[in-house]
């Protein structure tokens, strides 16, 4: 019987890793931004361990010196241009023509519009703020503010599940060459559709139970056709961008740049809501957000370097093996850890710190890397709906001016459905992997 890690006879191993974790958590609790808390923890250990400090700038520069990461600002710029170009309004009108008269009509419209937004933007937060600022007032008039905010939050959840997805780009990068961004994008399609359909059914059930009035306008074929024609150029965007990536016209990063050009053309010439003077602000905003993610990656990779030379990944693998040799148990264990992490931690920080540790482990358990990667992303995305730290909740609370408790009173069935789906996907891998495999990944 092998001895567990904490009895290891190599005290230096525990000391370095533990010192880093303790310093990081301590500094983070004091309110130091996470990126700098990571950097300071690494700096402290470097000084204590008498390792040359030039490792810091070296690691930081090399960790963001990567073509695949450029997809992040690209999809961010594209999403921002689309939103300023009036995309959310168009998608809502379109969804209204189709599902406006189903029980919970306007709420159904919100979810469907959320799925549409998800197919052109890469981040939940952008979707949440766009949907919340456009729809809150109309929704609240019919359903009250709590349920309205809950539906908007649930709709925004689709953002990083349905491709493109910044979360998936970060995951694939941190996992190394074993995971292709395009394959991970495709892995999100079926679960994203199930999530959309499931949330619409759930909404219908709740609306019927509570006797919410029908709010939408009559559904007519003529109206559907008119809205489809009006929105064709937006609907074509995921076909061009995601389709182009999958079909091999360009790489995921190049697809992001194409999306920027596409969004620019739509905003300037189709919806005509975008002004040339909006563009610099879009670029600057995307750059600052990219820098926030980039700073996390840069400082975290200094920490990862120290943990690696401290042999933590090897020790962790042995520890996990001592606990369980069953892949499903391992998967459940990771899900539990991520559930807790998702409650408290911003998800980018979580990918950057945990993927380098867990992904190789999953591979060593013989799990399908693609399946594991998707479950990991899905779990942390669900974490953006769980208090106390839930990014979507914060955005919707802020824009819709509603308390977190009030949202949670209405949101919990959607969260429960999300986790139920997570377990279903864990047990039936083909739901995740069949589509990418069929496309040859």
């Amino acid at each position, binding site marked *: 019987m092998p001895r567990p890690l904490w009895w290891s006879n190599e005290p230096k191993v525990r000391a370095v890793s533990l010192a880093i974790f303790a310093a990081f958590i301590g500094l983070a609790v004091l309110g130091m931004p996470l990126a700098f808390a990571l950097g300071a923890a690494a700096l402290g250990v470097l000084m204590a361990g008498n390792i040359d400090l030039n490792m810091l700038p070296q690691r930081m520069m090399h960790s963001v010196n990567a073509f695949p990461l450029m997809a992040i600002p690209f999809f961010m710029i594209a999403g921002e241009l689309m939103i300023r170009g009036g995309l959310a309004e168009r998608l809502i009108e379109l969804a209204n023509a189709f599902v406006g008269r189903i029980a919970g009509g306007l709420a159904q419209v919100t979810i469907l519009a959320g799925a549409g937004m998800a197919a052109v933007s890469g981040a939940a937060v952008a979707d949440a703020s766009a949907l919340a600022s456009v729809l809150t007032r109309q929704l609240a008039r019919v359903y009250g503010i709590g349920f309205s905010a809950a539906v908007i939050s649930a709709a925004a959840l689709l953002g990083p599940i349905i491709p493109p997805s910044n979360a998936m780009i970060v995951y694939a990068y941190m996992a190394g060459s074993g995971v292709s961004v395009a394959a991970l994008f495709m892995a999100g399609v079926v679960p994203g559709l199930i999530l959309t359909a499931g949330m619409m059914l759930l909404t219908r059930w709740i609306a019927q139970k509570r006797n919410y009035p029908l709010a939408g306008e009559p559904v007519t074929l003529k109206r559907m056709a008119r809205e489809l024609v009006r929105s064709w150029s937006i609907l074509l965007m995921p076909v061009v961008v995601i389709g182009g990536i999958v079909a091999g016209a360009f790489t995921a990063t190049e697809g992001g740049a194409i999306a920027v050009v596409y969004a620019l053309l739509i905003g300037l010439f189709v919806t005509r809501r975008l002004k040339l003077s909006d563009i610099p602000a879009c670029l600057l905003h995307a750059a600052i957000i990219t820098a*926030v993610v980039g700073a996390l990656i840069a400082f975290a990779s200094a920490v990862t370097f120290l943990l690696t030379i401290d042999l933590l990944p090897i020790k962790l693998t042995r520890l996990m093996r001592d606990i369980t040799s069953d892949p499903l148990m391992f998967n459940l264990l990771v899900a539990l850890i991520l559930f807790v992490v998702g409650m408290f931690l911003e998800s980018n920080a979580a990918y950057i710190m945990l993927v380098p540790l867990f992904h190789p482990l999953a591979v060593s358990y013989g799990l399908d890397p693609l399946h594991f990667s998707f479950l990991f992303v899905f779990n942390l995305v669900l974490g953006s709906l769980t208090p106390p*730290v839930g990014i979507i909740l914060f955005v919707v609370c802020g824009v819709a001016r509603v308390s977190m408790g009030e949202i949670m009173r209405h949101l919990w069935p959607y969260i429960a459905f999300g986790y139920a789906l997570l377990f279903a996907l864990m047990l039936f891998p083909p739901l995740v992997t069949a589509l990418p495999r069929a496309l040859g990944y």
Partner: protein
Amino acid sequence: MSPDRATAAAGRALAALDRAVQVLVIAVTGAMVVVVVAQVALRYGLGQSFDWADEISRLLFVWVVFLALPLGIPKAAHVGVSLLTDRLSDRPRRLLFRLTSLMCAALLAVVAYQGALLAIDQWEEPLSTLDASVALFLVPLVFGCAHGVLHFLALAGSGAYAAPALVVE
């Protein structure tokens, strides 16, 4: 000059630096889009490729990340935890904020200094596909971190606490 006026002048200088860096960041971000789109267009239009496209894209990206890093500091855009600070009253909170800001400034100062030494050391080394120094990858890191030091010192000086961002965006 009185201390107040000196502070005000320093604030104006920092704001001017911010504006200049903003313009540069916007230009570099735009250039990044242009280079990648041009690369795709060239591949399909002429069946060719620039040797330097991959390297220059990465270079531009590194510039965006590190030049824009300090711009997020005064906006409290860098994600963090406000668990403790939310529960403190105003005075201890400001004190703690000054302290963590100073620590951030010290960290970035070390990175900038070490980065500068590294850049000087690598100055003679050329890029693979461009006739320029490989140290160009380190220049924005040095510059951005030094710029960040100024912002953290300004925050430490003013003690103007703002809760850190809880999300990226």
